[in-house]
């Protein structure tokens, strides 16, 4: 929830109260329930995206770029599957996703509205999850921009729907993880550019540790220890993402994405808590 949006919401008479103090007023409404609080923050954050050009510029630019790259070779390759799209996105998302997450907290800090937000009668966790849900929704909107590709594949050929579903699930989990650590970096850095650059760097670390060449080179540095393979198997996002793209959803992958995302969000909460105190 960026500052202008939060302010606007506070001034709207009769708007959905988030229980904050009305200027000049003394009474405070009861704090909303957990889910309601999350929904309120998410809705406000999302509204702030769509009130400005952020959502439009971001989703249009990213969707057009990703779809164009896919379409460039699609008819030449002549294969009715989306694997080329799913292979492409891990290289684009480390740029795309920090562009959403960088502003989540850094802008609040820059505008000095974070203090205001943290004094509202919602728990930091609700604010974190609300903003995170809004960012996920925006990312989902970008993914929705690829649905015409799915329509085209089914119109032209007979793609495997299971593989497409698996690929999309992989993308959602991938995005959830990247947005979670992006939120943490945004909370930590206080500057959007720093948050973007560090987010991109960490994102590429997650992706490139799954690249064969990188694994081979890292293994070669200490052959007995095989650090490349260790990173690939333990740290990298790619084996889990690739499994989803192959249509295989493993419990270990769900735990990897879910637990890591939770840890990053928890750490974000910790940072904000420290900031408040």
């Amino acid at each position, binding site marked *: 929830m960026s500052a202008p949006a939060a302010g606007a919401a506070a001034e709207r008479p009769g*708007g959905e109260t988030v229980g904050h103090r009305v200027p000049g007023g003394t009474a405070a409404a009861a704090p909303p329930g957990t889910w309601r609080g999350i929904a309120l923050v998410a809705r406000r954050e999302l509204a702030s995206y769509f009130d400005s050009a952020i959502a439009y510029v971001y989703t249009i630019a990213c969707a057009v770029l990703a779809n164009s790259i896919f379409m460039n070779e699609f008819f030449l390759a002549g294969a*009715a599957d989306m694997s080329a799209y799913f292979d492409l996105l891990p290289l684009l998302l480390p740029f795309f996703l920090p562009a959403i997450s960088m502003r989540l907290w850094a802008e609040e800090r820059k505008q000095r509205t974070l203090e205001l937000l943290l004094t509202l009668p919602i728990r930091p966790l609700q604010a974190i999850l609300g903003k995170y849900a809004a960012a996920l929704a925006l990312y989902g909107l970008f993914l929705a921009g690829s649905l015409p590709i799915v329509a085209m594949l089914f119109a032209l050929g007979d793609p495997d729907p299971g593989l497409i579903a698996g690929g999309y699930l992989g993308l959602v989990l991938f995005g959830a993880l990247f947005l979670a650590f992006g939120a943490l970096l945004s909370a930590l850095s206080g500057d959007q550019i720093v948050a973007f650059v560090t987010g991109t760097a960490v994102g590429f670390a997650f992706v490139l540790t799954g690249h064969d060449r990188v694994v081979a080179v890292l293994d070669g*540095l200490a052959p007995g220890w095989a650090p490349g393979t260790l990173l690939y198997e333990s740290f990298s996002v790619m084996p889990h993402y690739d499994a989803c793209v192959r*249509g295989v959803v493993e419990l270990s992958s769900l735990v990897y994405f879910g637990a890591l995302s939770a840890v990053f969000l928890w750490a974000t909460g910790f*940072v904000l808590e420290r900031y408040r105190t």
Partner: protein
Amino acid sequence: MSRYAALLLGAALVLLSLNTVFALRVIGHLPEPRLELGRVKLAQLDRETESRLAGLAADAVVTGYFSHRSRMPSHLRRVEGEVRRLLEALERAAAGRFRYQIVDPDEEPDLARYAARRGVAPFRARSVERDAYSERTVWSSLAVAYGARPEVVLNGVGPEHLPRLQTLLIEALEQAERPRRPVVALAAPAQGFALIEELLAPHTEVVRVGFQEGAELPEGADLLLWLDPGAVEPRHLRALDRFLDRGRSAVVAGSELRVDGLDLVAGEAVPRFAASGFAAAPLLHHFGLRPRRGLVLDARAEQVEIGGRAVELPFAVRSIAHNQDFRTLRGQPNGHLAFLAPTALAPDGERLARLGWRAEALASSSERTALRPLPDGPVSVERLAREWGEPVAHLPLLVLLRPEDPWRGFAVFAGASTPFSDQGLLMPGHAHRALVGVLLENLVSPDRLLIHRAGVVRPEPLPELGAPGRLAWRAAAVLALPAVLLAVAAARRGGRRQRRGPRADRVSPARSGAAAAALLLVGGGLALAAARGLAGLDLRLDLSRERLAEPAPETRRLARAATGERALAAELVFTRRSGLPPQMRGWPGRVRELLRRLERAGAELTVATVFPEDLDEQGRARLAAAGVEPLELTAHEEEETRVRTVYSALVLRSGGRTEVLTLGDDAAIESLEFRLAFALHRLQTGRRPHLAVVSDVPRLTPAEAHEQYQTQGLFAPRGADPYGVARGLLADSGFRVTHVEVDPRGTEIPRDADLVIWFQPRRRVEPVLEPLVRHLRAGGSALVAAQHFNIQPRQYRGTGFRTVYWPQPQTPEIDRLYFPEVGIHLVREVLFDELRTADVTETQVARTGPRPEMERQVQALPFLLRASAANFVPHPVTRGLGDQAFPWASYVTWDEERLERLGIAAIPLIRSSERTWSFAWEGGWIPEELLAGPPLEDGRPAWLGRVALAALFEGPFPAPSEPLLEPEEGGEPPLGGETPAAEPAGAPGRLLLVGASEPFKNHRLFDPDFRADHLLLNAVAALALDEELAAVAARRPAARGFDYVAPERRLRWRVVVLGAGAALPVAIGLGLGALLAGRWRRRPALGRRRAAA
């Protein structure tokens, strides 16, 4: 900002942009508008060039032949401009001695004829038109005339020429003025290779080099002759790579075996074989070849005189001129080549494709060749000839590796050094000297020398660095700047603290960060550990249609049967992880995982892991006795080329039987489940399905042989075995594969063959057709892959090098023998399909002389059919199959009524698109208008419609109405003839007729875009195995294509995907905005209503 102001600003921006573009174009025409900072200049002349231009002895005129920019494919459009810029610079610097002109031969027919007289030819380049591959014939050549000297022509000038064009032109002038002799680096043992030096000396400058012993290759060497190599070490491979990367070529000749002499024991000649010390495997593996282990025996062999009598030595292979194919080179030896105890070479199709080489077998053994294990003790020549070995045909003994990158050098491998040795060069009646001449003529030809002199633009290779050095450089490159910046930040922070003192009122971000990092380390570590721990539980959901992550039902059934007496013992024989090349490190895990699944499916299974490096000699010998051999591989690992000897095998034992699966390549891992299931099947049944493979070698038509060879006193060549890779794939998959020799008197197909595979029948087919019909009538299965034509692009000087297409007849003859009687027709027409692919093929360019030159050019015409998976009929043969390339395929039709009468069912398996047309070729070139589309009938295109490219026929096959072969005295009576009633009806047989043999050839089988190996394995499994096991063979992820899509529809879809992709978020955003606004509007009203209440 008002709307008017915004409009004005926008218009100003557009005008400014247009102005900038125009200014840039104007600047582009100025003489020296650019600064070239690199070492290699495109148009800026260096001092050396200027001094050479100043010293020109005669007038130099460069003529550029370029098609107009609008006709060029995108990647060639800027070439003319860059060339013109360079030529202008040269002209300015030469003070009148250098002139140039650029012409477009397409504009003026006379110009095209003028160019053709000078040997300048257009070439075909691939372009993409409306989202589909297309080809264009364009001109992009330079002819350099220097005084009265012969012109030097640079054909096919492309962007890759530009960085070195300046040097190429100057070197062309230099070469014309002062031709230099090529330098040959000769690396050979001191003894036995003196004559080769004498032979080379008149034409080249020979430099002896101790390459084997560690000496560097001379910088100026144009050709390396490495004869009888010994141990191959990484430094040899690195040096070879660098040498070839610089455009130089290498010839490596040697065998793993040596014959130390012949003893006369009890009147019989006994050869003394010994290991030569040459480690062929890593060297060949490095280049995408493999040694065929064992002793090569050939019925066409050299003779020696022992004790006054001539003794034929079957291991001294004589490759006669008919078994040689030098068509792609200038010249040919035109005589016998001898190879003493050679190491036969086998192409590794998948690796060759990955490395960018194309293997051409220049010389091979004869049709009657065998491979046998090297005898343990003394064995006489007579016994070798008697016992013979496993029949194999046309083993490649001399192989040329042609690079996909024309700037790279060629590599030639000979299975023995005999043709280059003193002994070989002195052999009477052999063409070894001519072979040396041919190799020189091609590998150090003037055009190759020009490339060598100009140099190839590649980054300088790094000096040899040890691991610590590499680590230090890596650390410096990655960490130096961050370390400096961190130090600066820390220093500044420290200074600020000193000035201001600590701030107790605020939480330090660094402290927050550190605390968060600690949290992350603990939490993240726990999360990762949990994920890793759960991976072993194998809890997963498989969303794919084929459920590829789970074993197939048949695999599970076979696993369930492996209990009690048939309990399974698996032994993983793998080198330790750190000793495996990177790409193989995950393989043991995959094998273990599959075994775990088998166990879960009910198999009684014990798994043991053996690390061969922990075994002593005896242990390794036991492995070898069980059939587990080490693989010698080379791998690029972390800036280093390494030679590794690794074990990668799975040994399965059950019920007293043993099966060994060697996992040496990606194909083995890709089909791991099938190979394992098939091995279980063999363990349980004790039977290995037997495939009999019949194939002929490619050869010229009689007219071509006469015109191009016999009139010149040359032997017409025949190609080597083009289906060796296919046979290797089937053998590696677990089948017993027997090569069947084609005997004109009557070919014998093994009676126990489960499947007969006949790759490209060629005239005369009766000796094979007769036993094939017998086999079908006995209820057997057959796969016949045949096509009528092999379409060759040709360019003739007389026609201005316009490209014409000639369908070279392959004469499969099954269109007129037996099959038409049954009602099955392989239609003898050239087939075209709008659904096509692109390929690089040999084009015959007839510049001078009767023998054309071969040039690799692009083809993207409708006779290169693309069989889309969307047009496959669901069947075990087509399951798990992606699109297939069927170049120059023929189509199959059948007479439904006749087949029905005979009780034969026909199933079309692979079909073309609807947009096909054909041409009943009788002679000459394919009419040009047919390349553009179907002929018109009543003003409308006459489409042929969807036709079958492969069909399966099942049922009792009848006897032929006429005997196919003449009866032999005392032999089996011929099938068919006057007493058809006497012939029994025959058991139901199965015939899979594929209208293309080209996809199964060595260089196409593993094409990464169209995996013909998948089609072959599917077809063989479907015909030779039961349906359930065949289904396991077809389990693989396959990208299935779609049918023909018209250009307009392609464009529409592009617009939809891009437009809707952008519009969807806008629509959703607007909708959301409207929704939120609506709610807000409603809420005050609600409040008012409540207040009123």
